[in-house]
């Protein structure tokens, strides 16, 4: 699986083998276009369908029917002519649709006529005091281990946060015999009223009944504390306790594992590094690419599908993948598009899949105190920069995230801002009394994932390339 791409040019290159990427690559290949799917993980599935072809969890009910839908997507992909490479890290993409990808320690370069970015989502930073302690992880991390290695929490475990994934994870942990001592629900009480006008769309969506039954299943077995307004983790070199305030009352409980989750946000690094325009989404509180109805971005030839296009969930991601692929086929070989589902059908499927999303976004919009930290709480995990450090830098003239790099190196560590970018933007916006859109985001550049200098030095180069940099 970890071999370099077979060709130098493809009609369509898809990045990411989650719901959107699987659907996009299969659709494009089905229409007869030469298609390459590059994915960083060991196998297909992305996060939602992680380890779909290899999970040791054999009891299908434990992961739930929504998970196994992924197996059909993988089957369609494998039946198609698409070339698929896993453990492939795309580290550069530019406006000419030139792609650099690292496979097995060596880089290859391919060119696409059309690109579909399906790089999905990552968990929103949850910067509370103590979130860097060993023993504090994301809920998604626990779910990854559960799906791919059938590992479940064993020690004293607290899950804190909000959103559908939190309840799904809790149900899965319990079904596999794992331990959860307490769930701390941080959903802001006022959000219930704000979400009410959107409730009708939600109760008539498939999420409603599933969500309710999952919450009932979990609440029957675990103590749930709602209305959490403060949260912190502490310990000496290892998580020892979790402290929280609910209804004005503080409580501290011993814990070995704290799983945090307050929703997911688009993974923008590759798209932004290609120069694709993004705008601040005031409801989802994140950067989303500016796209047309087919997912086409501001860079000609590059479309974005799935949660990277704005959070919509797995069902919407699959349809967005098919829409983007169909649009690519229409552009390259219009006659071949006749084989595919009509665009009108796909668009109505998308509307159905997105039903109820505004309700979820409004209900689970994270509270300011869990997004915008204060004092000694770490903002940038890589460079260990605190909220106070950021505010001090603003006080002496740092105007935005890119200036802050020069002051404090925020976003310049190996994660390249993935775990601090949103926090830095919102923190600086608040401190400078500006909107996040005005404050902006880190200017992201290739390589968007670290590669070794040796790998970079070994890439093929022409005489002119060498002459441009060698003296004499």
């Amino acid at each position, binding site marked *: 699986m970890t071999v370099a791409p077979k060709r130098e040019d493809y009609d369509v290159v898809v990045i990411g083998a989650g719901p959107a990427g699987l659907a996009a690559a299969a659709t494009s290949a089905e229409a007869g276009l030469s298609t390459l799917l590059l994915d*960083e*993980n*060991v196998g297909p599935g992305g*996060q939602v369908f992680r*380890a779909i072809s*290899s999970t*040791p*969890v*054999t*009891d299908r009910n434990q992961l739930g029917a929504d998970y196994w839908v992924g197996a059909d997507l993988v089957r369609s992909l494998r039946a198609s002519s698409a070339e698929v490479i896993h*453990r492939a890290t795309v580290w550069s993409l530019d406006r000419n649709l030139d792609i650099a990808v690292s496979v097995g320690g060596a880089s290859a370069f391919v060119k696409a006529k059309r690109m579909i970015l399906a790089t999905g989502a*990552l*968990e929103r930073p949850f910067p509370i005091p103590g979130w*860097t*302690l*060993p*023993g*504090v*992880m*994301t809920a*998604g*991390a*626990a779910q*990854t*281990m559960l799906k*791919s*290695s*059938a*590992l*479940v*929490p*064993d*020690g004293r475990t607290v899950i804190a946060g909000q959103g559908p994934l939190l309840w799904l994870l809790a149900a899965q942990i319990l079904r*596999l*015999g*794992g331990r959860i001592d307490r769930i701390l629900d941080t959903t802001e009480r006022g959000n219930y009223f704000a979400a009410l006008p959107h409730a009708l769309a939600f109760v008539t969506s498939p999420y409603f009944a599933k969500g309710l039954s999952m919450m009932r299943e979990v609440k029957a077995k675990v103590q749930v504390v709602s209305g959490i307004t403060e949260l912190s983790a502490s310990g000496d*070199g*290892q998580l020892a306790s979790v402290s929280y305030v609910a209804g004005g009352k503080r409580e501290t409980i011993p814990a*070995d*594992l704290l799983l945090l989750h307050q929703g997911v946000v688009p*993974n923008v690094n590759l798209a932004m590094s290609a120069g694709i325009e993004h705008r601040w989404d005031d409801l989802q509180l994140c950067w989303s690419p500016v796209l047309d109805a087919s997912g086409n971005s501001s860079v000609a030839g590059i479309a974005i599908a799935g949660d990277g296009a704005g959070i919509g969930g797995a069902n919407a991601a699959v349809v967005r993948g098919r829409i983007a692929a169909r649009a690519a086929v229409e552009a390259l070989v219009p006659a071949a598009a006749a084989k595919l589902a009509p665009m009108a059908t796909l668009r109505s499927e998308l509307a159905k899949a997105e039903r109820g999303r505004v309700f979820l976004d409004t209900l689970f919009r994270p509270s300011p105190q869990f997004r915008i930290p204060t004092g000694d709480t770490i903002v940038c*995990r*890589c*460079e*260990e920069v605190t909220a106070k450090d950021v505010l001090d830098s603003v006080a002496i003239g740092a105007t935005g995230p890119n200036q802050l790099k020069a002051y404090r190196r925020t976003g310049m*560590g*190996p*994660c390249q801002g*993935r*775990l601090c970018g949103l926090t830095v933007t919102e923190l600086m916006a608040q401190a400078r009394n500006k909107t996040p859109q005005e404050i902006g985001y880190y200017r992201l550049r290739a390589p968007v*994932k*670290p590669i*070794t200098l040796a790998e970079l030095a070994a890439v093929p180069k022409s005489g002119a390339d060498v002459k441009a940099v060698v003296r004499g």
Partner: protein
Amino acid sequence: MFKRSEQDKRPPVQIFVDGVAVAAREGDTVSAALLASSCDARRSTAVSGAPRLPYCMMGVCFDCLVTIDGVGNRQGCLVPVAEGMQVEIQKGKREIGR
């Protein structure tokens, strides 16, 4: 912190963590194998030396960085285990030449 479900029937794979044999399963990532084991897998950061364990397990946070078969700063959560693999827990800054 984590235990293996009894339904997991994958074949065992032996890796070495700082020279000590650790039982993993085929298909585990290095980070999952470390978290499932009883060994102290905490790395310490290059900036302050603070202890860390993997945070995201999906290739985003880089808190899982380990030395694998002599190559430093690999993302343990993205690399599957292989028989006889040598894993070293990173303490502090990276050493020159590794």
